[in-house]
Every structure is written in structure tokens, then in C-alpha cells.
């Protein structure tokens, strides 16, 4: 059996080698992320059978939890690792040609480390380790957002940094408090002893951690950095940030709420928060004329939707939420990737300047269309099964509040449809404005986009493929007791 720690160690090691590779030959460095992510992907696939039998616990340094740090590679963690690897692979292929200026080697290093950070967050079973990986994720994304070095990039990056640092400080305070209360940092260990402590005391650290992670997860009041950062970063980075970074943040929130604290009292509030996030995100996106900003706000909306799905906390909705994770990664990734070249071509991010692109860049426009249809949740694309599961589960669970919230969720879908279809129409059905460069999407980008499109279609047509796995991932997320049992 292969050891899951390789998922982290190998890309990290590869990233460390890039400075030297860059010194020797400049052109190889851009293939390093591809290699790293390909490796991870293969590894994830090979790990699937083992993980489905039971979670794999990696005791780092050979110390028994809770004394050492452990990785908890359950279906959920593996799901995220695989998702990150897959999306990371596709986007790194896209970056091969998309990123052409600036310190390229550094871009690729940071890119790998961002993904390593995300993978680490998904796999770790230790609170402080989670914090460290979060910081890897955050700091590399600060740097990548500002990669282009333009006004917008820097401004958004600085704002992101300040908010992100405040967030991680809050997280650290929360972790410190938990350590003070429990004397341990292991998630399973804390989960085991949560019941023995006065619940009132636990609330404050929980809120601190929720606030801190919420910044990364872009939950409503903490998400002000997102539209700036996602819209100003290079498109490939926007794709990663939207498709992976915030989702990992949300995963961490879910881990806290479900596994570590195991409190069900807060679920209704979280569902409400999710719908609020969804509402705010979609409404802001609706009012945008800048395409990347629109996509960024739409990410907020999707995060809200997933938070809602997770907070309803029935098996079906959590599965649906996880499905929506996949869909969002692929679709939003596809949208950002195609938007990247559309923007290159038109020279502007205004939606009005994208008019008539359908004729000039057929493949890229098609990719954008598929992405938006999928995100809105139209069959036969990948967005539909997720949305269907969420609605089905929420209605099955019942309760007036949940049903009303479900209604709101669907209203937001309509709003979402309205602004996405507007862009699709602009691409195909409005008279084009000539101008901009005559550039077509190069082969690497085309490969990436076609790959994502095929994934979206395949998942939409045959959701069973993912659903079986996601169902065990969902029970992994919700089964705190099993988690504790398997770690300790």
C-alpha cells in the first residue's frame, strides 16, 4: 500500500527543487506542477480501495496520536486530495502557456505549494497542523494574487493579506483556547473529550475558529476579500482560489463543526448563514459588469449553497454538498480559464467587450457556456445532480425553516441563471466589437478546457460514478464517533 503522506511530501519536495532547476534550465520548471499533480492524482486513485475499507491513519514520525501529528485519510480527505490533484493538474496544464511573463519559476513553486497547503488542510488530523497548512495556502495565494504586479492585483492582495491575517490570528487564538481547555491539539482527541466540558465555554473558541476559517471559506460577513482577490489574480489563480482554496476553507469549517465540536445546535444558524451568503453573493454577482468580479461573487454564492447543504446535515444533502464541491471546482475552474483567454483576446474584463466572442473564439466560448450551464445546475451537466441532491435532502429533512431556506436557495439559482445567461448571450448573440488581440487559446489551454468540459459532462451524465464515493465521504464527515475511534 502506498503511504498517503506522499501526497504532501512529494509535491513539496518537487517545489523545493524548482529553484535549482530554474538555475539549470528555465523551461522545465513549468512542467513541475504538472508532474506533481499527476503523481498525486495517480496516488489518490490507488488509495481509493484502501480508504473505502476504512480510514487510513498516518502517524507522522511514528508517534501515536494524540502525541504525534496524524493524517486522517478518510474518504472525505481523499476526495479533497483527489479533487485538488485533478483540478490542479488541469489548471497547471492551462498555466503552461497562460503564464508567460514575470518570474515563471516562482509562479510554479507557489502554485504547487498552494495546492500542497490545500491538500494538507484536507488530510490533517491535528488542529495546529491545520493552521500551518492554512498559512501555506494563504501566503502563497497572497503572493499569487499579486503575481501580475498591477494596481488591482496588489491592492486586492494587500487587502486579502490583512483580512487573512486577522482571520488566521482569530483561528490561532481559538486553537490556543482549545489547547488551554483540553490540553491537546488532536482533533479526534478533542472530539472525544468535548462532551466532558461545559458547552458554554466551548462556544467562544468555536466562534473564534469559525470566524477565522470563515475568512478563508468566504462565509458572508467575512468574505469581502474574495471578489477583489479572485477578480484581480491571473485567471489560472482565480480558478484555483475559487475552485480549491475557499472550498478547502469550507471543508475545514465543516470538520470543526461536525467532527471536532460535534454540535448540532448551530446547524440551523449555519444553514441560515449559508443562505445569506448565497443571497449576497448572487445579488452582487447580478449587479456586476466585470466578468471576473461576477464570477468571483458567484463563488461566494456557491460557497453559501454548499454551506447550506452541509448545515442541513442529512446524509443526502451532505452528499449533494460534496457533489457541489466537485461541480464548483470544475465549472468555476472552467469559467475562469475560459474567461482568462476571452479577456486576453478582448483586452477588457467588461462583459460588454466580450460580445461576439462566440464566433471569434468558439472553443473558449463553448467552454464558458458549458461552465455556466453547469453552475446554474442545468442537466445534463454536473451541476444538476448536486443541486438535485441538496433540494431532495433538504425537503426530505423537512421543517418549515429548512423548506423556506430551500426556496430561497432556488430563487438564488434563478438569479444566477439570469446573470450567467446574460453573458452567454453576450458571447453568442450580440454583435461583436472588433479589436483586441487576435489570439486564440493555445493547445495547452484548449486541452485543459476540453478536459474540464468532458469531466463536467461525464459527471452530469453519470453521477453514480462520484456519488458512491461521495456518500461514504459524507458519512465520514458526519461520523465523529467513527473518526475518534479510528484515530485513537
Amino acid at each position, binding site marked *: 500500500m502506498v503511504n498517503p503522506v506522499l501526497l504532501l511530501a512529494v509535491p513539496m519536495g518537487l517545489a523545493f527543487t524548482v529553484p535549482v532547476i530554474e538555475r539549470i534550465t528555465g523551461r522545465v520548471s513549468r512542467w513541475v506542477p504538472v508532474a506533481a499533480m499527476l503523481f498525486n492524482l495517480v496516488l489518490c486513485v490507488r488509495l481509493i480501495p484502501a480508504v473505502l475499507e476504512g480510514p487510513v491513519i498516518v502517524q507522522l514520525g511514528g508517534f501515536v496520536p494524540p502525541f504525534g501529528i496524524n493524517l486522517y485519510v478518510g474518504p472525505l480527505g481523499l476526495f479533497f486530495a483527489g479533487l485538488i490533484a485533478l483540478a490542479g493538474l488541469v489548471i497547471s496544464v492551462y498555466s503552461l502557456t497562460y503564464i508567460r511573463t514575470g518570474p515563471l519559476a516562482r509562479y510554479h513553486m507557489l502554485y504547487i505549494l498552494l495546492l500542497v497547503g490545500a491538500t494538507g488542510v484536507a488530510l490533517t488530523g491535528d488542529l495546529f497542523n491545520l493552521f500551518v497548512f492554512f498559512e501555506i495556502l494563504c501566503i502563497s495565494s497572497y*503572493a499569487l494574487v499579486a503575481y501580475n504586479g498591477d494596481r488591482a492585483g496588489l491592492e486586492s492582495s494587500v487587502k486579502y493579506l490583512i483580512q487573512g491575517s486577522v482571520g488566521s490570528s482569530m483561528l490561532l487564538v481559538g486553537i490556543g483556547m482549545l489547547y488551554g481547555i483540553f490540553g491537546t491539539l488532536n482533533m479526534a482527541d478533542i472530539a472525544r473529550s468535548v462532551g466532558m*466540558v461545559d458547552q458554554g465555554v466551548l462556544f*467562544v473558541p468555536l466562534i473564534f475558529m469559525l470566524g477565522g476559517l470563515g475568512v478563508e471559506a468566504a462565509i458572508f460577513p467575512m468574505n469581502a476579500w474574495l471578489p477583489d482577490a479572485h477578480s484581480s489574480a491571473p485567471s489560472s489563480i482565480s480558478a484555483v482560489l475559487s475552485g480549491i482554496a475557499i472550498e478547502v476553507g469550507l471543508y475545514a469549517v465543516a470538520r470543526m463543526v461536525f467532527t471536532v465540536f460535534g454540535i448540532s445546535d448551530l446547524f440551523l444558524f449555519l444553514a441560515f448563514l449559508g443562505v445569506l451568503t448565497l443571497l449576497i453573493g448572487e445579488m452582487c454577482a447580478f449587479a456586476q459588469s466585470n466578468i471576473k468580479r461576477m464570477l468571483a461573487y458567484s463563488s461566494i454564492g456557491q460557497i453559501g449553497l454548499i454551506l447550506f447543504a452541509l448545515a442541513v446535515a442529512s446524509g443526502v444533502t451532505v452528499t449533494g454538498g460534496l457533489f457541489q464541491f466537485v461541480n464548483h471546482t470544475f465549472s468555476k475552474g472552467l469559467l475562469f480559464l475560459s474567461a482568462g483567454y476571452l479577456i486576453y483576446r478582448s483586452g477588457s474584463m467588461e462583459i460588454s467587450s466580450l460580445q461576439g466572442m462566440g464566433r471569434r473564439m468558439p472553443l473558449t466560448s463553448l467552454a464558458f457556456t458549458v461552465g455556466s450551464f453547469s453552475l446554474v445546475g442545468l442537466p445534463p451537466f454536473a451541476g444538476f445532480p448536486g443541486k438535485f441532491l441538496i433540494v431532495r435532502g433538504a425537503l426530505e429533512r423537512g421543517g418549515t425553516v429548512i423548506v423556506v431556506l430551500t426556496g430561497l436557495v432556488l430563487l438564488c439559482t434563478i438569479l444566477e441563471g439570469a446573470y450567467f445567461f446574460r453573458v452567454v448571450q453576450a458571447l453568442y448573440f450580440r454583435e461583436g466589437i472588433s479589436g483586441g488581440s487576435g489570439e486564440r487559446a493555445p493547445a495547452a489551454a484548449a486541452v485543459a478546457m476540453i478536459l474540464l468540459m468532458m469531466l463536467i459532462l461525464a459527471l452530469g451524465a453519470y453521477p453514480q460514478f462520484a456519488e458512491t464515493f461521495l456518500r461514504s465521504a459524507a458519512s465520514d464527515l458526519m461520523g465523529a464517533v467513527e473518526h475518534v475511534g479510528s484515530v485513537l
Partner: protein
Amino acid sequence: MRVLLSLAVVAVLAAGIVTVLRDVPFGGNSSRLGSHFVENGREDTGAANIVTSVVLGYRGFDTLGEVTVLFVAAVGLGALLVAGEKNAPRKLEKASMVLTTGSRFLFPLILLFGAYIFIHGHLTPGGGFQGGAIIASGYLLVYLGSRDRRLGKNWAASIETGGGLTFVLLGLAGLTAAGHWFLSNFLPLGVPGQLLSAGIIPIIYVAIGLKVGVELTGVIDSLMGGTE
């Protein structure tokens, strides 16, 4: 208005903190982990400095992450500052002779001290990060003294790569050599308190020390207006 709101927010935060800390009295730490580490740290990792045994033993993986964070920062800062338009060459006043001479004189001593700190990380207070920081301060001094001297880029790159790879490869070696766990301490632990003890810990600390030194130097370098 804004001030009042801020104060109110902070006050509520403080109130929340107070409710928690009532249950966590100062000085009354009774962590199972802490006592376990103090009792077993030497046997488990071979390091006399229990903090080191935690940093590189029990929580070695954190440290790998930490190294990575610093690496990310150095790389990111480089990307950030190099990517932009070259800053206009600033007119730099030549350093005074006292500074120049002093820095030349002190630089090897500082390097030596830094090396001492990270080599003895498992025995005394200190370690790779601290040592690295000291080394970087030495370079800072050099930069102050003679404005145009820089750390060689090729050197820097190799040390960065080498340090990081050492850490990772040692971890991977642990995977295959002993215990089947990443970062297992597969070398003989030796007698706690001696220089050659604690297995892989000193090796890692040396790697970290060099790497951190180079990276922090790189950070200083970048912030001073990188030349590349």
C-alpha cells in the same frame, strides 16, 4: 462612531475571552501532552531540549510546514518585488568606514554564532530558525556595510533547495527505513545531551538553519530592492 463601534466590538471580544479564561487558570496547565513529552521526550527523540523534541520529533511535520511557509514567503516576496518594474536606482550614500570595517569584522563571528545555535538546537535553547535568523542578521550587517555585495543567487538557490530537500528526503527515508512512518527518527538516538545524538534532528536543524538563513537573507535582499 467608528471608534465607538470598534471599542464595543473589542469589549465584547474581551468579555468572551474572559468567560473562557475563567476555566483556564494561568499557570494551572495540566496538559496530558506536556507531561508526556517532558517525561518521554528524551527517550523518544534523544533530544535534551524538550522543545526541540517537540518541534522536530513529535510535531516535526508542523516544522516541515513552517519551513515551507518561510519558503513560500521568500519566493512570494521575490516574485512580488522582482516581477514589478525595476525601482529607479536609488542614490545610496556610501557607508562609513566604521560600519564597513565593523561589518566585515563581525560577519564571520555572527555566522559562526548562528551555526552554533542551530547545531546545538537539540541541546540548548535555540535551533534552526533561531540560527538562521542570526545568520540573516549577519548578512544584513554586510548589506549595510557594503551596499553592493549580495549573496550569490546560485548559492542561495542550491541551499534553499538542498535544505528543503534534505528535510523531505529524510522524512521519506524514515518512511522506508524505520517504522514505516514519514519523518521517523531512523538514525540511532545516541545519549541525550551529547552533540551527536537525537538521530536526524541535528541534520534537519542544520538544513533548516542554512535554509532559513538564506531565505531571510533573500527576504532582506528583496526588500532592499532586489537586483536580478
